[in-house]
């Protein structure tokens, strides 16, 4: 099935996020320019864009961290975020980091389950500064998921990991997503990562969603499949890069 372009975004009341006419500028530089976007429940969306295109700005707005953004933004349910750097609190042991601010009835059990899900049960008592990069990022994922969010925001969480760790993290994220089914908005600059993971790929350019493609291929995906290589070329072109890597 060829990747298809969605038409004008359908407005359904059940959407986890509906954003209308979002604008944000820093000093006189316009970063977001009347951007519209909807995210359906349980949908895995990847947001691509050149650096400085406003990907992280949009994500921070969805997380409620940007108070100066203008427009209509409606985010329903619990929102969690995993940052680019794991942001574990260094003076709290791992389990205490996962449970930080958690207000469920049985936090200890919930934390233990979350640690097991990301394979960190035996590191529960470790100080964060002793974790490896991959372990720390898994802990960050566990902390985001332990709140059972309806929207999970991932801000380039794999960009500082080595290639091998990144592949296992991709699989972990897919597993967790299938188990918990939050809507995921993954901000990335890695086209292959977007193609491997997402149901829908967006490109942010000029302050708006300049392009979007639906990917229906079943996972795990074969990145050499014709429909993916075609889309890859297309997305790279949207990002202003040709296959040889020159702009």
């Amino acid at each position, binding site marked *: 099935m060829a990747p298809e372009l969605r038409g004008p975004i359908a407005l359904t009341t059940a959407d986890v996020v509906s954003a209308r006419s979002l604008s944000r500028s820093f000093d006189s530089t316009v970063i977001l320019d009347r951007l519209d976007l909807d995210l359906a429940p349980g949908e895995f969306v990847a947001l691509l864009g050149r650096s400085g295109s406003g990907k992280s700005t949009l994500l921070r707005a969805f997380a409620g961290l940007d108070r100066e953004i203008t427009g209509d933004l409606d985010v329903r349910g619990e929102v*969690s975020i995993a*940052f680019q750097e794991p*942001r574990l609190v*260094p*003076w709290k042991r791992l389990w205490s980091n996962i449970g*930080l*601010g958690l207000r469920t009835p049985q936090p200890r059990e919930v934390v233990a389950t979350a640690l097991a899900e990301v394979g960190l049960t035996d590191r529960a008592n470790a*100080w964060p500064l002793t974790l490896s990069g991959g372990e720390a990022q898994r802990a960050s994922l566990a*902390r985001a998921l332990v709140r059972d969010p309806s929207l999970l925001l991932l801000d380039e969480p794999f960009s500082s990991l080595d290639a091998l760790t990144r592949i296992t993290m991709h699989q972990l994220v897919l597993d967790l997503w299938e188990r918990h089914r939050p809507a995921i908005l993954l901000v990335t600059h890695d086209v292959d990562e977007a193609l491997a993971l997402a149901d829908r790929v967006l490109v942010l350019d000029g302050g708006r969603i300049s392009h979007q493609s639906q990917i229906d291929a079943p996972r795990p995906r074969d990145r050499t499949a014709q429909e993916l290589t075609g889309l890859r070329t297309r997305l790279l072109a949207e990002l202003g890069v040709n296959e040889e890597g020159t702009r």
Partner: protein
Amino acid sequence: MPASQTTLDPHISGPLAGTSGGTSPRAGTAAAPGPATQKPTTRRRPVSKGALRLVSPAIVLVIWQLASEFGLISTQRLPPPTQVWSTAVSLVTTNSSAYGTLQGAMLVSLERVAAGFAVGAVTAVLLALAAGLSRFGETAVDPLMQMLRTLPLFGLIPVFIVWFGIGQTPKILLIAIGTAIPLYLNTFAGIRSVDAKLAELGQVLKLRRRELITQIVLPGALPQILVGLRQSLGVAWLALVVAEQVNANAGLGFMISQATQFLRNDVIIVALLVYCGLGLLTDALVRLLERRALRWRQSFVAQ
């Protein structure tokens, strides 16, 4: 039991005798060679490390004593360690009309410094939180504290005597102000240096304000707070010494001013040494606190 301990020397005259002699309660039994030879090997390293640091002070004491005995130092001006020691013993054991007892004086001084320190430390942390957590607090509190900082602490003594008389209040207040300033400055700086990204995390995790302060802000500022704590303890002892020399009728400072009148330099030196000992003690307490509170950093350094 004490008798058997003094007679067991031949049993353990090996190389380990120095570290085990008399300290092990089992050393006097027939099985002495077994436990007595095993125990010291396990704690040899920490003992030798601490003991090494005692070598240079011991050498100074020996030189001091010898210099007195060979008449190089006037014992009237600077009594030798042995005389200081016997004076200390008599100050502890006899309740003299001029000085009272050493432990009594120590207790009075300790009470003063504890009261002043507690008042100063609590005030400092509360003010630093107010200034560190909001712009309004900073504009309201920080200029006052910066002005207070430049005020010569001991210049306040005459004013305090006029205001509060010569009782406990001016002494405790002086110690409190001396304590509060370094602790405030360090706590404020510590709070402001807490990683903004962690504060943002607290926002994402919807921490309540109290949780944000107790889980993120104060622990993040803690290394700097502990630096301030050590500085302010130093100032607290200093302020105590000065405050006690003025119009005290009890305490170590009173003992010193009495001894000055009777030309008893040995008593003065004993009192000074007690100040030293108390200062070292509080410093050790802070160090202990530091080691426990900053474990998360040590585990990182150790790797």
